[in-house]
């Protein structure tokens, strides 16, 4: 994320859902500081559902764990029944802890991203910028509706040149193990051959 990039969120509208009032105030405050001031706040996903039937948003941020209907169920509903425009709305789930039994639910709900609390302005803004890039295909299948969950292996990200995992390959390629093939050998590989009948 380049600090010299300019962003304009003044005309964007966001729906923010969290049953924890303090967490809701904090998140809305951070969004407002980015210039995203058009916000609708909800303390429950059920309330948010009713609002989504009448209004569409440019971005939805929801807490993961909530009573009655959690954030994952809400996004699952939105992707299926949120209306022509509403169901394509970028949705980010923010969660303090994901129960082991909810991991699959989180994967399959169709959210664009899942962020772990405690929130930081850097992570929130970075995910908003990623969502705005819209580089992922939207997938509709019987069991999943949402942005493509598969990420192509494009090598280590620029900010982690040594990779983020122990088994990540180094960005530099090793020396060739064998001599290169000659042009003749390459030509022969693609040369049309007469079929022996």
């Amino acid at each position: 994320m380049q600090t010299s990039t300019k962003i304009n969120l003044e005309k964007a509208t966001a729906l923010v859902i969290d049953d924890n009032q303090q967490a809701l105030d904090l998140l809305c405050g951070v969004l407002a500081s980015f210039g995203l001031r058009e916000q609708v706040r909800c303390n429950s996903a059920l309330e948010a559902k009713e609002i989504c039937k009448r209004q569409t948003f440019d971005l939805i941020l929801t807490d993961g764990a909530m009573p009655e209907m959690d954030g994952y169920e809400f996004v699952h509903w939105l992707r299926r029944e949120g209306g022509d425009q509403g169901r394509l709305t970028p949705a980010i789930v923010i969660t303090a802890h994901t129960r082991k039994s909810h991991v699959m639910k989180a994967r399959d709900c169709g959210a664009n991203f899942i962020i772990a609390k405690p929130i930081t302005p850097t992570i929130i803004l970075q995910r908003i910028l990623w969502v705005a890039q819209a580089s992922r295909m939207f997938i509709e299948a019987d069991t999943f509706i949402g942005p493509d969950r598969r990420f192509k292996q494009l090598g280590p990200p620029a900010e982690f040149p040594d990779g983020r995992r122990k088994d990540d390959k180094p960005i530099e390629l090793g020396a060739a193990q064998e001599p290169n093939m000659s042009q003749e050998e390459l030509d022969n590989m693609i040369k049309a051959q007469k079929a022996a009948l």
Partner: protein
Amino acid sequence: MSVVKKYHVKPRLATLIKQSGGMYVGEALKRGQAVIEEHLEDCLSEIDLAMAAMEALAAKADYDIEEMYTASTRVIAACAVLSDESLAQAARSLCDLIDRASETGKINPMSVQVHLASMKLLHRSEAGPDERAQIIKGLALVVEKQERQAQAQAEAAAAKAAKS
């Protein structure tokens, strides 16, 4: 066979964010951090309240473990104002402990007490980074131990059932 539809969606946000005006990312981040700092006192009070609620729960002979879980998630959320991550990590470890226990139906009260004592130590204390890292490592071992014990008990019960 089910049909899979794939298409590109350009959200309105993608267009809006590029419009003229607005602010630089660096400026937005500075403003965001200032907002976080404005909430410092509220969040510290929230952490105190949640931890007091957890201690009150643990003092009871019988309590709803889900209430403990919820209070621990309150601590994690309020840790947004802290630059050190150790308290949030300890609270997350407690959530892990409770989550695993809710699968097996058994939780060791001592494991919960160890987590609460560690969280108290990490919150508003001057413990150094090494000490904090040691505490977090210890808590991970507590969660692992409970999981191993639960697994061993489940295996013993299955073996007993197979014999009878």
